[in-house]
């Protein structure tokens, strides 16, 4: 019995081609099929082409700066367009500090929200809560920035920063005049922006932890929190870390909201009250006004560095989320 009706669809696809050409007798059908297939392939290759194009253009346009400064570009602290002296360290520092600050603020909150929505939330609340989160992801960053300028910054200047200065000023992280605008404001607005991303990924990861894991822990007499800690969070650890790294990727490349509140001064200061600058912001502010080829090339080189870092960060994150949602979530030694 060879099976006149193949169950597996792949076989049908493979066999349908000769049948079709038999029925049609003309070669035009086959030609159309081929043309269509190649056209779709061209679109797919277009995606590869786009990435190649991005890499090519960035490398090409940053050559000038690369040859002029080499590796010292990334450790130089001096950014002086007038004397054509370019060092990107203040921007790298600003990007790293603002992103880390936002992670410190956002991660506990985002994981808390995810745990609440998957494990504790009454059913009727689940829909509205996730709808609201989705809505937040749709707000453009320029609107976050607008809100930050007129609401968040005054709030930080009048209340939060004086308080932090008084209580934690001795650490050196919170000293100096409270301008409102500065590294702290950038970190806070970034945190608000990445909470929805981290919490939605964490929620996805928590919801694929098998139900019997929870039941098993509960059957041992655990309280709900112990069940969450032992049965859920421990199993979902890698996926949550993946979500956090994805949030980091977003924070590193975020431009508008940060540019609007960070103060845009290329200095490295210990205090979080001080203004700073990030890699994305310096491109946004200076690119269209950059005079001179070296200046432009230096900005493109910052873009190239930003591009490479975000690609590595994103690839890492996808890999970690993937291992949890598609691999075997339940591990014996957990």
């Amino acid at each position, binding site marked *: 019995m060879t099976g006149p009706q193949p169950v597996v669809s792949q076989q*049908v696809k493979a066999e349908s081609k000769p*049948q*079709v050409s038999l029925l*049609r007798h003309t070669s035009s*059908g086959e030609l*159309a099929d081929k043309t*269509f297939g190649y056209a*779709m*392939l*061209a*679109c*797919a290759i*277009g*995606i*590869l082409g*786009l*990435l190649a194009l*991005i890499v090519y*253009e*960035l490398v*090409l*346009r940053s050559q000038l700066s690369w040859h002029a400064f080499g590796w010292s570009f990334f450790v130089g602290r001096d950014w002086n367009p007038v004397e054509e002296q370019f060092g990107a360290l203040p921007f790298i520092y600003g990007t790293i500090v603002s992103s880390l600050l936002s992670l410190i603020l956002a991660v506990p*909150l*985002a994981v*808390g*929200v995810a745990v*609440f929505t998957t494990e*504790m939330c009454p059913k009727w609340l689940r829909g509205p809560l996730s709808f609201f989160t989705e809505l937040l992801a*749709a*707000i*453009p960053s*320029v*609107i*976050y920035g607008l*809100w930050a*300028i*007129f*609401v968040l910054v005054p709030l930080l200047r009048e209340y939060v920063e004086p308080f932090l200065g008084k209580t934690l000023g001795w650490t050196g992280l919170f000293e100096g005049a409270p301008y409102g605008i500065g590294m702290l404001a950038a970190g806070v607005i970034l945190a608000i922006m990445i909470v929805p991303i981290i919490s939605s990924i964490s929620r996805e990861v928590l919801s694929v932890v098998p139900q019997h894991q929870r039941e098993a822990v509960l059957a041992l*007499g655990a*309280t*709900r*929190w*112990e069940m969450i800690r032992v049965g859920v969070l421990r199993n979902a650890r890698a996926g949550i870390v993946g979500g956090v790294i994805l949030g980091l990727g977003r924070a590193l*490349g975020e*431009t*508008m909201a940060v540019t*609007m509140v960070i103060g845009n001064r290329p200095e490295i200061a210990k205090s979080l009250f001080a203004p700073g600058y990030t890699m*994305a912001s310096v*491109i*946004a502010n200076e*690119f*269209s006004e950059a005079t001179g080829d070296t200046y432009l090339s230096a*900005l*493109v080189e910052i*873009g190239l560095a*930003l591009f490479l870092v*975000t*690609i590595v960060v*994103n690839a890492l994150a*996808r890999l970690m989320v993937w291992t949890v949602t598609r691999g075997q979530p339940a591990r014996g030694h957990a």
Partner: protein
Amino acid sequence: MPESTKSAIAPGMLQISLYRRLTDKLMTFVAVSTVVIVLVPLVAIFSYLVIKGIGSINWAFLTQTPKPVGEPGGGMANAIGGSVLVLGIASLLGVPVGIGAGIYLSEYGRNRFGDFVRFTSDVLNGVPSIVIGIVAYSIVVLRQRHFSALAGGFALAIMMIPTIARTTEEMLLLVPNAIREAAYGLGVPRWRTTLSITLRTATSGVITGVMLAFARVAGETAPLLFTAFGNQYWNWNTNEPTAALPLQIFTYAISPFEEWHRQAWAGALVLIVLIVGAVSAVRIAVRHGTLAGAN
């Protein structure tokens, strides 16, 4: 034997110590308070947008071009028009390629090469928008020697393509194979099956994907800074610099003028209404759409 086991476990199970019960209550409290802490700024953003936006929006805002600095009145009509122009170009360039790549991935790409394309489009999705702006600048603006709506549209198209490709693929994969097989059985060629049967069945899902990509790029500012550049006047020429709503909001927000701040809020409200309106319209359409039947 079972009796003794039962009695050995029972005390430990029934008497959960005070410490453990308190920890449980405390952690529940912590989780609830994280939700509250997260919701406060979000509710604040929305209410500020609505209150400040409605207070500053008026007919002149929607119909006039900006007045010179210092003069009251004027509006963002040219920026709204500019956004339509740039987004139109982006959709024309991005949507066909995105859908085509999605069709390839779902109908032809169940192999290593397909996986490679899938990974590449995920990577493209994560590229910071400001970097896309640099690339559009060096490909279009440097060749044309001036800023243009075309360059802005090109930048946004690059951002739309990977999103559309992935959602189109997902939606096409939802179409049952039996439907494709039925078409093949009738002697319909493969290209016709894909376009008239598979794609048709998944239409509402594919449109949702397109709209989500559209909504995402509609608010993008960074890639337009040095491509579309901005313009104080009306412009419908694709080769001229053009205003765009997000750009105008940015310029007005960082300006020192009270009047411009007011208009920035109004612009933000218009922008968010456009985006949320587009997304929820699609949601409703999909709920009553053909895809629900196809599943």
